[in-house]
């Protein structure tokens, strides 16, 4: 695994900006984590949906992998994110396909033609992704959707940035908040997506999309923070 660390070894460190290599590592790591969590996400979705969320996410990210391999070396981070977006849109289907697709598309737009994502840009990227999902899916916080993972992540990222953190710590904060957000969907009644048909019976179950968001953001943080 390539290393972005510019400081001393033996300590976890973050890069000052996230580059194409990080973007590629993120998506590859995300694909790996989603593949490993396919059954778990299916199970969450079986409890309160139709049991295919793991299937859908895995199909999409597996379709992305060969396309990453084929990219030219000089591809910019925004272009990688856009490729992820279009591939997810054309392979995931279901609710998650257009929602994650839009998220990556808006993220790509936020990065634009920059060759690196610094702390401020990172917050903008996460915010754009979340806003894209809201634009398409019209979910509000507390509706028991992936938004309940994304919004705490965006808020935590903004707070970390305001506190002067670098990209690695911002991602860590976002990942931690997303994970907590996913857990916090458990007591909720759903108002969007299939789970909304369950009424009270959705209580006690974690939203699968919130969980996949948490997994993806954790992957983003993991590949930014490296230990020698």
């Amino acid at each position, binding site marked *: 695994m390539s290393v972005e660390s510019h400081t001393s070894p033996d300590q976890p460190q973050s890069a000052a900006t996230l580059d194409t290599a990080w973007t590629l590592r993120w998506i590859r790591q995300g694909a790996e984590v989603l593949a490993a969590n396919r059954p778990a996400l299916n199970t969450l979705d079986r409890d309160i949906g139709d049991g295919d969320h793991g299937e859908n996410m895995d199909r999409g990210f597996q379709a992305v992998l060969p396309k990453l391999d084929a990219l030219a070396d000089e591809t910019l981070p925004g272009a990688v994110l856009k490729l992820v977006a279009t591939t997810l849109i*054309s392979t995931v289907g*279901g609710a998650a*396909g257009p929602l994650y697709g839009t998220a990556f598309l808006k993220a790509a737009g936020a990065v634009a033609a920059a060759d690196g994502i610094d702390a401020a840009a990172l917050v903008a990227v996460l915010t754009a992704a979340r806003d894209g999902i809201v634009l398409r899916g019209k979910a509000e916080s507390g509706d028991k959707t992936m938004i309940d993972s994304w919004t705490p992540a965006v808020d935590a990222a903004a707070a970390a940035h305001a506190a002067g953190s670098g990209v690695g710590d911002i991602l860590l904060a976002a990942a931690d908040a997303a994970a907590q957000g996913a857990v916090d969907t458990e007591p909720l009644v759903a108002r969007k997506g299939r789970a909304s048909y369950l009424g009270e019976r959705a209580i006690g179950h974690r939203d699968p999309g919130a969980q996949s968001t948490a997994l993806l953001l954790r992957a983003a943080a993991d590949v930014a923070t490296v230990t020698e």
Partner: protein
Amino acid sequence: MKKLINDPKNVVNEAAAGFEAAHADIVRVSHDPIFIVRHDAPVQGKVGIVSGGGSGHEPLHSGFVGYGMLDAAVPGPVFTSPTPDPIVAATQAVNGGAGVLHIVKNYTGDVLNFETAADLASAEGIDVRAVVINDDVAVKDSLYTAGRRGVAGTVLVEKIAGAAAERGDDLDAVVAVAEKVNSRVRTMGVALTPCVVPHAGEPSFVLADDEIEIGIGIHGEPGRERIKLEPADAIVDRLLGPILEDLPFDNGDEVLLLVNGMGGTPQIELYIVFRRAAEVLKEHGITVTRSLVGNFTTSLEMAGASISVLKLDDELTTLWDAPVQTAALRWGR
């Protein structure tokens, strides 16, 4: 899980190939991206009608492609809406210059993917409109849910809008009649057993040996309540009550009554359901002037049924009676 399948990954593709082999007189099949079109598509000057959604509801939608009904059907993976690409391709394939109607069942995934497809097709100069079907009265309030689901009433929309397009109605008129059917049809279903999605290999939900789910969705989503098994007549009463109240249907109405099997219910049971439903409608002074009984909007091998009631008028009755020639619904030719 016991199924007559090969690799679960190939279920949709192989079924499409079989469908093509069996119905070459009615349809052509595009395999990549996957969609099914009328053998004579595009019909110049005719409004094209495309529907689609997750597989596992057959004959919906592929069984309704043909003269007088759909121009194309886009099957997603089992219970997962298709992506925009095949929807766009199908839209192009049926575009005869008079615009294309998308008939979309109200599920977040279907709505979003068809939206994206419509944007892309519009960008290519095709006049695309969508009607979202939400006939399921089991789900109550769109303030608190993703809104009512599109279920078996979809078949009635597809037949009637298809007849309007076939006789030459323009896109506005076809959209209007599709919306009219959607506004006048109400459905509610019951599940006796769950179904097994091939790639999952396990039942999508669990019902005890004496339990049934009233208000089931067509992917096994729950509905209103889980109760103990009751006699068919009592179950029919539970389904029809909310249907009749909702529109509401009134004394003197003429209706089409659809008793739809979920896939694993013997026909003999569907007719027992039909009998009671017709009886209850009669008690309410509602006359069944058209009927349909069978497996039309299924959930794989789920045992159960849904009841749909459509308030007819002369226009809808005429369009219902118009000739149709599809794999699953055929008369008049």
